[in-house]
């Protein structure tokens, strides 16, 4: 069964990738979507078997991957609760996105390629989440990066899409560099890349109370001799660097908003629900290592909180409907990292789980909107669409309710975000690390902003007077059922995933559900503590949500002039936010332009003038010079020829004479 879950998408990719053009678009769509639906159903079966059954962690061997000296890496599927949660998320969203794309990509001439890429991505993501060792995980990690690159640049004739694809790839390289160094470090430290072996040895690295004498150095990093604890921290930070790249955390977040150049279903699948959560998954998977490094967890918390806050502020002023949701994704990923940093892994995965539903819903919903208004993405040119596309409107509202975490505090009535997001905020209040206080404040403020920009999106798009041209408004139409049905399914998840599963993920059923998949130190009591926070802390996210909604209602329904007035009053702040805190400009100045200058120098001067000039070009030019002179020697005059012969004899004779006398 597990082989089928993992390899059906690969099969779909191979069939459609190789024979797609001859099969035709229809067959390609049905093959890939059919396989994915089967895989998704099997994933749910696996989810209930493993999560709510008796089975322990087990591995399904596939083949021997690398066996070189002491480095051994099998290709095996590691099945535990964490894996099946990810299987459900990936395959469900992927199957729905496949189906949705049948409608959304209807006009595109390259549908077989698109569906092949989608299935390739799904396979790579499954490789990542089922990985039994770090090498296999890295394989999946790079595979999703590749598929992401291909899909962002799917419309390769658009220069902006190509630029975005390259940007995503390059920025991810930075993170991957850290990740691969981390893998090397793990191998040096533990002598293995297999999770079982690593986790078994990791316990001996636990900080021992009172053992202050410096232990023997085990690791040399950049010239520093590190003892066990420090080595572990360095490795964790390197691995986290990979996670930052993949999960778009500050300062490696810049590629995610640009990635919206890809088709909207891609944004929903890769850049909201699955790939970007790979970093979260990786940290959760490696919880037995991360749990031992207090420093690394503090950094994770800090970066997560910073990203949550930063992305939320930028989301306030964006006008592109997909970019708003992209920043929202970035921000929500920040929440997950805060939870990881607290050692609250289950909450992070829970939020990952619920977020997949409502964020995919929002993306696919916005895709439906874009589809309706003739591929317009600027919200300033929308408005008043509620009456025309009511189903899409209500789906978007459900997504927004879930994202903002609507629910009644102290009860179990609420949307998915109400359970997962609020748990993280409460967890950050009781967390024991130096960044926890900052994280709590940042997350609450981010919650206000989240609520504000989410409702701003709804109001600007669906309410008010139409701002699109009459021509566009005339063509507005509800999407076909093939696009709406996935929305319904996701909406069900967005509404009820929290209430159904919160007990298992973070509540009473924790240990039966997770079993040994996640590791926390015995002295980590966050699971217990977050229930006992003061009432005002429990009410804080609720209040934040209400406040954000109220402000948005005031700004965009009651007095639409206020935002413009504010923007003109605080021009500097507005520009600062609109330009995304000038991160892109800063990178452009620090990295891109010097790199280009260096490249131009090496190209023009180094390669063009020096190497080519003295090498190939120079030599060939000299050869031509010599040739021209030699050809001129051949005058055609007999006496010249005779003269040359005599000169030749004279030269030889002279040479012989001198040779004999010297």
């Amino acid at each position: 069964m597990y082989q089928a879950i993992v390899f059906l998408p690969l099969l779909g990719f191979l069939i459609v990738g190789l024979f797609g053009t001859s099969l035709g678009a229809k067959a390609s769509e049905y093959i890939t979507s059919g396989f994915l639906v089967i895989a998704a159903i099997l994933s749910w079966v696996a989810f209930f078997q493993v999560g709510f059954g008796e089975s322990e962690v087990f591995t399904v061997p596939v083949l021997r991957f690398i066996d070189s000296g002491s480095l051994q890496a099998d290709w095996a599927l590691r099945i535990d609760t964490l894996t099946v949660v990810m299987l459900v998320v990936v395959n469900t969203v992927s199957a729905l996105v496949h189906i949705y794309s049948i409608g959304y990509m209807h006009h595109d001439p390259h549908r077989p390629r698109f569906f092949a890429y989608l299935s390739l991505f799904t396979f790579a993501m499954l490789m990542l989440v089922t990985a039994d060792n770090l090498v296999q995980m890295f394989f999946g990690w790079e595979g999703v990066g590749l598929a992401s690159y291909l899909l962002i640049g799917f419309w390769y004739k658009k220069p902006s899409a190509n630029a975005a694809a390259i940007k995503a790839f390059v920025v991810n390289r930075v993170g991957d560099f850290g990740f691969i160094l981390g893998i090397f470090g793990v191998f040096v430290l533990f002598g293995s890349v297999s999770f079982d072996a690593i986790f078994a040895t990791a316990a001996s690295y636990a900080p021992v109370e009172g053992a202050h004498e410096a232990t023997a150095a085990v690791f040399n990093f950049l010239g520093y001799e590190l003892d066990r604890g420090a080595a572990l921290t360095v490795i964790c930070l390197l691995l986290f660097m990979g996670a930052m790249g993949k999960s778009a955390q500050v300062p490696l977040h810049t590629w995610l908003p640009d990635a919206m150049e890809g088709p909207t279903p891609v944004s929903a699948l890769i850049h909201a629900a699955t790939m970007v959560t790979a970093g979260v998954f990786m940290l959760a998977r490696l919880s037995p290592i991360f749990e031992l490094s207090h420093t690394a967890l503090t950094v994770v918390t800090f970066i997560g909180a910073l990203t949550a806050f930063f992305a939320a502020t930028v989301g306030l002023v964006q006008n592109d409907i997909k970019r708003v949701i992209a920043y929202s994704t970035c921000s929500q990923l920040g929440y997950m990292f805060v939870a990881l940093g607290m050692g609250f892994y289950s909450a992070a995965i829970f939020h990952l789980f619920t977020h997949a539903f409502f964020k995919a819903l929002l993306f696919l919903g916005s895709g439906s909107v874009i589809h309706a208004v003739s591929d317009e993405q600027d919200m300033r040119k929308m408005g008043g669409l509620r009456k025309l596309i009511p189903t899409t409107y209500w789906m978007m509202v459900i997504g927004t309710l879930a994202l903002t975490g609507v629910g009644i505090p102290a009860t179990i009535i609420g949307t998915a975000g109400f359970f997962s997001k609020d748990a993280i905020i409460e967890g950050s209040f009781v967390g024991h690390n130096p960044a926890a206080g900052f994280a709590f404040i940042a997350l609450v403020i981010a919650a206000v902003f989240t609520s504000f920009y989410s409702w701003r999106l709804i109001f600007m798009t669906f309410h008010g007077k139409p701002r699109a041209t009459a021509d566009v408004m005339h063509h507005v139409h509800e999407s076909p059922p093939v696009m709406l049905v996935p929305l319904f399914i996701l909406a069900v998840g967005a509404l009820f995933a929290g209430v159904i599963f919160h007990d298992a993920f973070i509540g009473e059923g924790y240990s039966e559900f997770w079993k040994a998949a996640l590791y926390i130190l015995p002295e980590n009591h966050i699971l217990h503590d977050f229930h006992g926070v003061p009432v005002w802390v429990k009410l804080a996210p609720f209040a934040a949500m209400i406040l954000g909604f109220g402000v948005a209602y005031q700004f965009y329904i009651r007095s639409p002039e206020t935002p413009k007035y504010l923007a003109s009053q605080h021009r500097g702040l507005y520009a600062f936010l609109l330009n995304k805190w000038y991160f892109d400009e800063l990178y452009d100045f620090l990295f891109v332009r010097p790199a280009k200058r260096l490249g131009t120098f090496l190209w023009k001067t180094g390669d063009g003038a020096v190497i080519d000039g003295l090498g190939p070009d120079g030599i060939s030019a000299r050869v031509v010079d010599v040739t021209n002179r030699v050809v001129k020697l051949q005058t055609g005059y007999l006496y010249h020829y005779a003269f040359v012969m005599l000169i030749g004899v004279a030269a030889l004779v002279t040479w012989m004479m001198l040779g004999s006398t010297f």
Partner: protein
Amino acid sequence: MTPELYSSLSLALPELIIAGGALVLLMIGVYSGERANSTVTGLAVAILIGAGAWMLLFGGTGKAFGNVFVSDPFAVFMKVLMLIGSAVTLVMSVGFAKAEKFDKFEYPVLILLSTVGMMLMISANDMITLYLGLELQSLALYVVAAINRDSVRSTEAGLKYFVLGALSSGMLLYGISLVYGYTGHTGFDAIAATLSGADRQLGLVFGLVFVLAGVAFKISAVPFHMWTPDVYEGAPTPVTAFFASAPKMAAMALMVRITMTAFEPIAADWQQIVVFISIASMVLGSFAAIGQKNIKRLMAYSSIGHVGFALVGLAANTETGVRGVAIYMLIYLVMTLGTFAFILAMRRKDGNVEQISDLAGLSTTNPMMATILTILMFSLAGIPPLAGFWAKWYVFLAAINANLYALAIIGVLASVVGAYYYLRIIKIMWFDEPVGGFLPMAGELRLVLGASGAFVLFYVFFGGPVGRVAEAAAKTFF
């Protein structure tokens, strides 16, 4: 008839067959007039084959006529090559003769006479034999070069060749007289015996220089090459094919024999000369060919360059070196004949063409021709695993073994430069816009081109036996 004369005559029988045959054919031609051309050509080829076969089957080894004539494995090897060159070029001339009003029966007769001269050159063991053979060969060639007497270019070529040839003969004769003056002998063995005891005399070295200059003229080594491009371009194409093949074999054999026997004791001196003309030939051949537009002229420079490469082996003055020269000449002969078969087939409705630009897009119009010429050009450029690579490999190997590193390095660099113009022909054939194909190839040309291509392509499979034969030939001198 004394037994000694009898054995001498039997050793020289192939030469006698050809000489006698030439005279008989002359009579046939005279009495049957213009129509006789194809008959005479056919008989001439038969005579050449017969002489070669007799030599291979019954020819012994030994010295004749009082040590002025020698037959040994090296001579047989080079004579076979030379006879192949003569016979094949005669065969290839048939179609051309018909098409271009070139059907003169004197042509095969002259070829036969020049072949006799070349066989004498190869077998010469005395300065006088050498000179007589060389002159017999040259006189026939002077006439052949100008045989198309209505063409200004052909007569100009013949005249230039004659004047410069006379000059080189004078140098050769002057050199021989100097050598005779300082050693008192004309026989190669006697000269070597005299030199091995004596001190190095400057006058003798002068003689050496002049003798080698005379021979270098025949193999068109720089700086005695100036006639080559003009004659190659001006002479009718079958004549050019002959010039590029058989006389090169004979003159190179003579060069090897004279340095390996008569001047063996003063190897240090002639090695310097050979190195000099070898480098000059390789470099000039490579550079000057780049500027050419006429394919025959290009082949002239190509042959200059290849002679330079072959001399690399001689400069080593070792057994492997001589073996390298022998193999080089064999492979060069095959490649040259194949290439000229192709050039002879460059025919359109309005006659033969010779410009390299006429080859444009040949891969679409005549894919088979283009493919084989591509193989030949790659081989001439020395690209492995084709025959041309092994030819260069053996001579450079010999040079390295003899510690002539500078020579080998310059040779390799020159072959890199030379590769350009061979590759340019390939590029023109495969990547340029077609300018119209050629007429279908005549059967004999097709055969020669195909055989040449196959030899070059599959040489790697039978290179071993060929190498052993060449080694046996080279053993003659060691």
